[in-house]
């Protein structure tokens, strides 16, 4: 250790579902190195390359150091430095003007998970200000896994259904369905537990259009599947089980309702089409024998964990995939059992820590103006991002059309927190049009991101190294982190609660915040189960080991009389009356395969014959870290295309290619691989949008090509898009 150097523990604030421990070496007020967990007594929470790269993000030459005001057209990138006083005065005046002129519903707050913590996290602190002003428009829904939420809320009535990952060691069979945790993390150590499961002899099968890093490292078999057809494969597996009488009928009788209706559908009694493996082969590209074998193996290996990644749910009718998987988990009796899985979405840990929260939020009166938003489940508000009156994927359309399009208001003012919506909302070119409709946009940022380039005022915020906060971290073991201020804020960047308080004062809310950050941390921790708060703060971290793996629905299965499921019937709802009552088009009360729009048999496929999927790369967390040099050099951005498709187009490796459809065009390098299905191309999402003078994106932002049309159950179809690829 270097002289005068201190080592301070904190945790990464990523957007990956992990919660990894970082140890910052600090000398003369500067972070010089970062190590990770070296705990010798408990499971280590080791950070990935992103966590290890924070120094290049904190001290990046492009880090925003002053408030900036736009002086050129939106997107031009022309800004001038202003003072905090000028920035907050301008914002306060604009907020007042907007509310006075157009009403509170014209204010929209968009917040995502870019910087999660209990106090400085964006939603609560800004919500409090907007609600003090009379309310604001907030969207409901999650880009990541709304289809999975829909399935869990209708089948189970709750949405935190992932076992702690140590329970993978109790499985005899693990089916990674569209699940690639070696890259997507979904809790620290998930991949490490998969490796150990394989070493213990657990059979692992990957179903995925790509031969992923997880498939390569852990799987015994890879079954390629056409994007958007996952529900068909699962339903055909159900057909095999019923035809061969492999289902656990006693489990179905005891714990579910509506299975007979599903059975009628899969056997063809309902519509004359038996959902056989032959039926599914034509749709999915999976050979019939493979579907049969997989169905038999899943039905007869106990316990088995069918882990359904959330990528396949980000498709047109993606909610059907998630609902079908839950029904299969019920048919095999794997729900509520150690080593099993309820078939719910792969992310949403059942084991969670507990702590209080920051400042209270007054009721949002704008929420009351639309009591039953279209397409929103009645119990949706009980799950995260469940309040609000517009589906997130309708926001661009709502900004453009407002009341004339049937939306509840005309939208004028957008505040963006911990998010990069211009880049990450579907259909980027339409989002640009939508942003240009707005009077005023504010974003809080570390960098001049694509969203920031369209903002009127950009506020420079601190990273979590530069302020004090507390957070719940990983879930296996359940962890808590005290994130103390390790270094002074970079430049004039300010902690979010700090400038929010200043803004509230300008709006006349002098009672907005009566505590220091340290006092807030103590208030928040009062509601935690931590036995020794002072010791915790001294150490900076606390792991709580559970006596056994956390398994959702254990109690419901062990003692159903006293522990009904959280559904209206108290059972697992294969048939959901809640869905039937909503009467949504293409959203049946039992899970069905519905052919997606922009499938290979769509007439559009003549012009755009390739199916685009927009996956994750380990060197970004969505758009975060995209500008970090240590990471950029490791996985250069490119569209992945199978050799067969590349040869048919005369494309060589690293060639610049034009990728396009009716929604947009980009030019980026091609990477020719054997690890993706022919007919499918993969563009990792999160690269920053950089249009040239002709509107052609040179950054390779995947959403230039995606559609802003929500699935009936609310899923974002970012993996449902037809494109063409040509040599540029």
């Amino acid at each position, binding site marked *: 250790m270097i002289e005068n150097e201190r080592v301070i523990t904190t945790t990464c604030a990523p957007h990956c579902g992990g919660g990894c421990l970082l140890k910052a070496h600090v000398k003369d007020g500067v972070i010089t190195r970062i190590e990770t967990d070296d705990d010798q007594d408990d499971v280590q929470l080791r950070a990935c390359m992103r966590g*290890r*790269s924070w120094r290049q993000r904190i001290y990046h030459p492009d880090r925003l150091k002053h408030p900036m005001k736009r002086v050129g057209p939106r997107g031009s990138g022309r800004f001038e430095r202003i003072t905090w006083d000028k920035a907050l005065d301008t914002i306060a005046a604009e907020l007042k003007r907007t509310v006075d002129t157009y009403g509170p519903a014209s204010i929209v707050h968009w917040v995502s998970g870019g910087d999660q913590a209990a106090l400085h996290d964006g939603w609560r602190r800004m919500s409090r200000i907007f609600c003090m002003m009379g309310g604001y428009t907030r969207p409901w829904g999650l880009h990541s896994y709304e289809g999975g939420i829909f399935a869990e809320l209708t089948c189970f009535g709750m949405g935190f259904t992932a076992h702690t990952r140590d329970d993978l060691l109790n499985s005899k069979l693990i089916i990674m369905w569209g699940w690639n945790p070696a890259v997507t993390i979904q809790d620290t150590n998930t991949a*490490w537990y998969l490796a150990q499961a394989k070493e213990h002899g657990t059979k692992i099968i990957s179903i995925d259009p790509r031969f992923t*890093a997880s498939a390569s490292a852990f799987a015994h078999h890879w079954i390629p599947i056409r994007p958007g057809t996952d529900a068909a494969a699962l339903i055909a597996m159900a057909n095999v089980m019923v035809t061969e009488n492999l289902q656990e009928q006693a489990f179905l009788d005891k714990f579910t309702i509506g299975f007979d209706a599903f059975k009628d559908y899969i056997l063809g009694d309902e519509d004359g089409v038996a959902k056989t493996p032959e039926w599914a082969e034509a749709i999915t590209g999976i050979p019939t024998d493979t579907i049969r*074998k997989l169905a038999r193996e899943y039905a007869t290996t106990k316990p088995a964990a069918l882990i359904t990644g959330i990528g396949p749910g980000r498709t047109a009718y993606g909610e059907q995939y998630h609902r079908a998987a839950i029904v299969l988990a019920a048919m095999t009796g794997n729900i509520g059992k150690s080593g099993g899985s309820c078939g719910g979405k792969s992310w949403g840990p059942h084991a969670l820590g507990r702590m209080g929260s920051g400042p209270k939020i007054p009721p949002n009166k704008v929420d009351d103006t639309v009591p039953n938003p279209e397409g929103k489940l009645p119990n949706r508000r009980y799950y995260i991002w469940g309040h609000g009156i517009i589906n997130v994927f309708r926001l661009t359309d709502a900004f453009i059309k407002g009341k004339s399009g049937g939306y509840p208001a005309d939208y004028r003012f957008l505040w963006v927190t911990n998010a990069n919506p211009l880049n990450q909302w579907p259909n980027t070119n339409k989002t640009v049009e939508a942003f240009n409709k707005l009077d005023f946009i504010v974003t809080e940022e570390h960098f001049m991101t694509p969203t920031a380039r369209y903002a009127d005022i950009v506020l420079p915020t601190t990273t979590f190294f530069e302020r004090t906060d507390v957070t719940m971290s990983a879930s296996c073991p359940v962890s808590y982190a005290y994130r103390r201020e390790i270094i002074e804020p970079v430049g004039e960047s300010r902690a979010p609660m700090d400038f929010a308080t200043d803004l509230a004062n300008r709006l006349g809310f002098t009672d907005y915040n009566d505590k220091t950050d340290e006092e807030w941390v103590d208030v928040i921790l009062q509601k935690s189960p931590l036995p020794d708060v002072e010791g915790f703060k001294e150490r900076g971290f606390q792991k709580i080991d559970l006596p056994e793996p956390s398994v959702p629905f254990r109690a419901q299965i062990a003692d159903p009389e006293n522990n009904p499921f959280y559904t209206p019937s108290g059972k697992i709802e294969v048939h959901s009356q809640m869905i039937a009552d909503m009467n949504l088009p293409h959203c049946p009360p039992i899970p069905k395969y519905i052919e997606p729009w922009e499938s290979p048999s769509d007439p559009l496929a003549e012009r755009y014959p390739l199916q685009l999927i927009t996956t994750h790369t380990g060197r970004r967390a969505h758009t975060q870290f995209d500008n970090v040099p240590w990471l950029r050099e490791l996985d250069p951005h490119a569209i992945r295309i199978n050799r067969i498709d590349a040869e048919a187009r005369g494309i060589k490796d690293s060639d610049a290619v034009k990728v396009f459809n009716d929604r947009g065009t980009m030019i980026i390098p091609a990477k020719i691989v054997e690890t993706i299905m022919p007919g499918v191309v993969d563009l990792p999402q999160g690269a920053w949008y950089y249009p040239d003078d002709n509107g052609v994106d040179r950054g390779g932002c995947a959403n230039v090509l995606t559609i802003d049309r929500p699935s009936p159950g609310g899923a974002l179809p970012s993996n449902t898009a037809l494109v063409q690829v040509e040599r540029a």
Partner: protein
Amino acid sequence: MQLAFFFDQTRCTGCYTCVVACKDWHDVPAGPASWMRVATIERGKYPHPFVAFLSTPCYHCDEPACVPACPVDAISKRHQDGIVVVNGDACLGKDTCQLCLDACPYQAPQFGAEDNAKMQKCDLCLERWSEGKKPVCVEGCPMRALDAGPIDEMEAKYGKIHEAEGLKYDERLHPSVIYKPKPRVSLASY
């Protein structure tokens, strides 16, 4: 005594954490110099691809080819732990020499992007050992696929396999590395 690396190739997911942790710890900027590298080995054709990863530091060979290759004796092998170290001040620089790189079959000698960059490379985090710590890549690997220690201890713990997918053991140099190699089989159709 000779320190050696162990690498479990069956566990590696190609996540590059070792690469970034190393660059952070040793303050190596983005660019051509990387003391730890991860190679991707791809074989086979769709639908039977084979992918393996190989973490590639310096193997601190028993008979390092770089040491005699250096015309100014800038590279030496430490007696106490077998770590091969370079004295950058003495190095002639990449524009003049690069004989060490020519000699090494594993491309362990690294050069930055700057003019006449001096050779730099993995030093097995030699200053960490004195604090009872293993190399930063070893302690950082999320898959616990890396280890390092005296070669006899490593062999006793992990066996004596010295080759892996993507690495051929050089019988002249005796690289100080032990592997759990990934079997070269494409996944069978299900």
